[in-house]
């Protein structure tokens, strides 16, 4: 997800200055430990949003301290936000490094694929244990948003673990099949069909 659209959403809620925007983003994702976005990143994103005409400066706020610029969303910004809301998020399951590792391990015969599977499984379980522990510590009365995020992480991990079990169970079949190779491209000019 882009920080850009998250900031637009927070400005659609109400106009804010940069510092406030950074704090609001952090609160939304359940703390910097979940998603660390630096204040500098917020300011540079704001600058790009302004250039694109999606955000404008609405005035200055001064309460004792230095002046702060208040930013507000523009009508174009709202349209961009609407478009974002109506587009599903693409999960990137195809770019799986483990899958590539396993296939190459089968192709090269360098390592026993079981070793690779077991190492991955242990690591996934360690992650799931960490998520479970964090979830148990979270207070359902005040940190429900954070709990939902942790649940999502846990369920992704569970899915990965189940898939890994399936890979293990079908490894012998996979081994017997040739690895996908690129289609040979015909040389020279394509022949004209008659």
């Amino acid at each position, binding site marked *: 997800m882009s920080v850009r659209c998250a900031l637009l959403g927070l400005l659609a809620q109400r106009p804010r200055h940069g510092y406030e925007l950074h704090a609001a983003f952090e609160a939304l994702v359940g703390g910097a*430990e979940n998603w660390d976005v630096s204040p500098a990143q917020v300011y540079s994103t704001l600058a790009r949003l302004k250039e694109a005409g999606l955000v404008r400066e609405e005035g200055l706020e001064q309460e004792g301290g230095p002046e702060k610029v208040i930013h507000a969303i523009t009508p174009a910004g709202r349209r961009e936000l609407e478009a974002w809301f109506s587009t599903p998020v693409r999960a990137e399951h195809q770019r799986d490094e483990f899958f590539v590792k396993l296939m190459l391990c089968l192709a090269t015969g360098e390592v026993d694929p079981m070793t690779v599977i077991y190492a991955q499984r242990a690591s996934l379980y360690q992650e799931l244990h960490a998520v479970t522990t964090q979830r148990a510590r979270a207070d359902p009365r005040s940190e429900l948003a954070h709990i939902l*995020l942790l649940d999502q992480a846990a369920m992704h991990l569970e899915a990965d*673990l189940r898939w890994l079990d399936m890979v293990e169970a079908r490894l012998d079949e996979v081994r017997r099949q040739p690895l996908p190779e690129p289609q040979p491209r015909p040389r020279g000019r394509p022949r004209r069909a008659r």
Partner: protein
Amino acid sequence: MAIVETKELTKVYGRGDAAVTALRKVDLRVEPGEFVAVMGPSGCGKSTLLHLVGGLDRPTSGRVALNGQDLSELSDDALTRLRRREIGFVFQFYNLIPVLKAAENVALPLVLDGVSPRKAQSQAQLWLERVGLSDRTDHRPDELSGGQQQRVAIARALASEPALILADEPTGNLDSRAGDEIATLLRRVVDEWKRTVLMVTHDPRIAAYADRIIFLKDGTVVDEARLVGGNDGAEKLVRQRMEDL
């Protein structure tokens, strides 16, 4: 000393051509205060392992020792006594007695072991309170939800103050929310009440509550994963994953 130790533990069911090896030379060590999960595909021998460790069944060869006591050296009576006093069992389908109230179910094993009814009652009250069911002591099993019934079963397992709890698919009959509550309770059994838990499960979510997972396949231990300590990377990985979301 390990609380559970098995050496070349083997179990064969049937004879001759019909013989099926459920467990093949399994060496296992569980230290006091550990929460260990046993996982593996169905038919891998995980329930057989639990039954042999709990003295519910005798091995074909190899041995099981609890706190250094070799179970094969015990008579049936002595084994029954040891099971009643030193092991608490938790089953998938709770195994509560339908006509008895929650408190009576929890007190029953103590009464059978010769504890005075009064003492048994107070132990039952104590443990039902600890598992969060102090307001359900007079309910019969059919008046309780699945999760509550399993809590009663856990209270019953703990009432005789055993050092070891053996749990066979304790969340297998529960929805994921009740399952999480039971796993959290088993975590407390280890962390708060300092018992040892050996649990069989096929659910990754539940296994992840443990400190260590043992993977069985075709009756042998094929892998083992330690989930706590020595892996600072896990927290970092979790953070990375949250960023990827």
